[in-house]
């Protein structure tokens, strides 16, 4: 089998080929591409797959679950984000959305469900109660699910709108896409490399401040 070795620059353009070999060797990326074959690093491919197929666990606690379920139905169409495959068992799910109040009596159950999920797994905290206890600084409520679970995305609101849930899903996709999870032993740092946590307050600030006229409440 004939082949030529080329250095493929990281994140850059393929080196321009010159001379009689232009058009590519029989199995250069260009010629493979022409045959309908895509080449990629396995790690990137897996990452891309994960990013676009985040399957949620069918789990709800209170009011927020209704808005989360609304996001699953046709007017909002969660299938656009590859997250319409709702799993009834934690073992098949990628993300658990803590949609509602984390009750003291429920906390060990939530933790057990999270433990049953297989890695890689992510947690979205949906709504004020799950974020911090919210309105319920009361004896029977844990003040935020992050007291016992690692949270990846927080959604504010009481309850947040379905659109906010979709935004959180997109943020999680970004995060999952940026994550580095070595598939095998690698040289360099081991373990999961996560991207920086983004603050929507900061990124939306300019846009929000630009709004000068707001719709008056006595118009529909």
């Amino acid at each position, binding site marked *: 089998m004939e082949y030529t070795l080329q250095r493929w620059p990281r994140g850059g353009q393929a080196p321009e080929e010159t001379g009689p070999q232009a058009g590519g060797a029989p199995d250069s990326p260009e010629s493979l591409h022409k045959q309908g074959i895509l080449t990629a690093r396995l790690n990137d491919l897996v990452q891309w797959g994960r990013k676009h197929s985040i399957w949620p666990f*069918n*789990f*709800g*606690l*209170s*009011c927020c*679950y*209704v*808005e989360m*379920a*609304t996001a699953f*139905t*046709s*007017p909002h169409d969660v299938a656009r984000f590859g997250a319409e495959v709702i799993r*009834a068992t934690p073992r098949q799910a990628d993300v658990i959305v803590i949609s509602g*109040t984390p*009750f*003291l*009596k*429920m*906390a*060990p*159950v939530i*933790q*057990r*469900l999270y433990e049953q999920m297989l890695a890689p797994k992510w947690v979205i905290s949906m709504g004020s109660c799950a974020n911090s*206890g919210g*309105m*319920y*600084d*009361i*004896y*029977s*409520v*844990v*003040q935020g699910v992050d*007291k*016992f679970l690692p949270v990846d995305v927080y959604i504010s609101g*009481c*309850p947040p*709108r379905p659109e906010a849930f979709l935004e959180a899903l997109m943020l999680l996709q970004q995060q999952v896409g940026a994550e580095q999870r070595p598939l095998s032993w690698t040289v360099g740092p081991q373990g999961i490399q996560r991207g920086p946590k983004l603050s929507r307050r900061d990124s939306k600030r300019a846009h929000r401040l630009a709004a000068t006229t707001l719709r008056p*409440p*006595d*118009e*529909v």
Partner: protein
Amino acid sequence: MTAAVAAAPSASLIEALRARCAGQELVEERTADGMPTLWVPAGALRGLMRWLKAEASPRFEMLYDLYAVDERQRSRRAPGLPAADFSVVYQLLSVRGNADLRLKVALRGEYPHCPSLCEVWANASWYEREAWDLFGVVFDDHPHLVRIMMPRTWEGHPLRKDHPARATEFERFQLDEARAQREQEALRIDPEEWGMSPQGEDHDYMILNLGPNHPSVHGVFRVMLQLDGEEIVEAVPDIGYHHRGAEKMGERQSWHSYIPYTDRVDYLGGVMNNLPYVMALERLAGIEVPPRAQTIRVMLCEFFRITSHLLFYGTFVQDVGAMSPIFYMFVDRQKAYDVIEAICGFRMHPAWFRIGGVAHDLPRGWQQLVRDFVDWMPRRLDDYEKMALKNRMLQKRAIGVGAYDTATALEWGVTGPGLRATGCDFDLRKARPYSGYQHFDFEVPTATGGDVYDRCVVRVEEMRQSLRIIRQCLEHMPEGDYKARHPLTTPPIKDHTMRDIDTLIHHFLSVSWGPVMPAGESSAMVEATKGLNSYTLSSDGGTMSYRTRIRTPSFPHLQMIPAISRGLMVPDLIAIIASIDFVMADVDR
């Protein structure tokens, strides 16, 4: 106040009660809601209750509510009432006589004893367990007095006045391995404890734990099942996974700032939850609500009845196997929310009613939005009838399953569509019109089978009636104020605030501390989405409630599950659970 209260039981009933506990004194208490209220001696309680249920005129068929009050820190208790550290309150409802009766028992001591009513009313069991759990009142002869709301590992009784309210008053929550282990151990089922036996005479039973997280239990609800193959031998519902302490919360929020908490009790009912709360306060303060505000309230309540019933409809048919209807129904819910949002500014929990009226007038152009919705909806309901109700598979799963009659419903405290499906036409909007329901032309849908299918049929018909009511609101919306001109309304009137110091001071105090409600006790009941919902408020003449009692319909409905599911299959239980239409916040509060 145009709201009609229940027909007061004749003086003869009170006389008859006096005669029945001869020698011991019955003390009558005046309450702002006008409900006959009597303090009775604990010793005579069981006899009186039996008599009231079986022989009195009118007969009180239903134990509507049972709760405790910690009386130790009362500052404005009416003179002449029996001395009490705790009291237990029993509210009875006569459906046939359309009357209420409230009996109270004064108890002394740190862990007072009170006779149990379990042998008189089947639904007393959970209420008494709740009062034990939250207040530490011991009910003698209760068959199984254990915690119901709090985890078994909990110490103390959280609704006592000397128990801390805030989570932040406790140590920061940590779920280390040892604690997780301990809590899991406390959640483990002991079949023997619940009268279930894994061993039969010649074969073993299976003990199945359904919940607290299961796709078809509609929230965090658990049923422990003893199964013979797939047949249910015994079912034991277990609740308390959704206890948010809403009643304790009422003791530290101002009268006004508690309104958003009511939204989250029946979280599908939205502003419908505000209504009994603000009505109870309006009765306490003597506020007359203007007709426009009343009609706006009715219109919004009926909108939420439709969104709640649509969610029930969709999830019910999904639970028995039909996937698609729920997707269509959520489109309609979205349309309803568009109207609700345009009017109230929020979707699920607008907290939009105010003491004395509503938060805002209707926006310009609301008529078209409402008209579009009421024109859109009926055709959709016709479609669903073909898609769901006439579906033979659904009929086979639902007809004749989980049936009970009116007497059983009343015994267990069932109200709302679950009661009307048995042929009893008790709808509070007709029986005791409140908030101007007497001006509307609508019917009370009933069915006769009392099974899963009929409960669905009744709700579907109720949606049509709600559309009728909304259309009448649209066509006859009165002009005038959207909030009463009374000093105790919230937010307070601001007309003269900037002109003289006296009104400025009052306005400032009323906004910062909240209104000061007169001392007394008041309650209000409404026909909520799931049944009868009422708030009973005790005021010591302050800016906060002394005791807030929320009677929710779903609590007794769940208690009834074992009685109607024994001998059926597991899939029937799923259909029954779906047909009850509950949300756990409405059960555990």
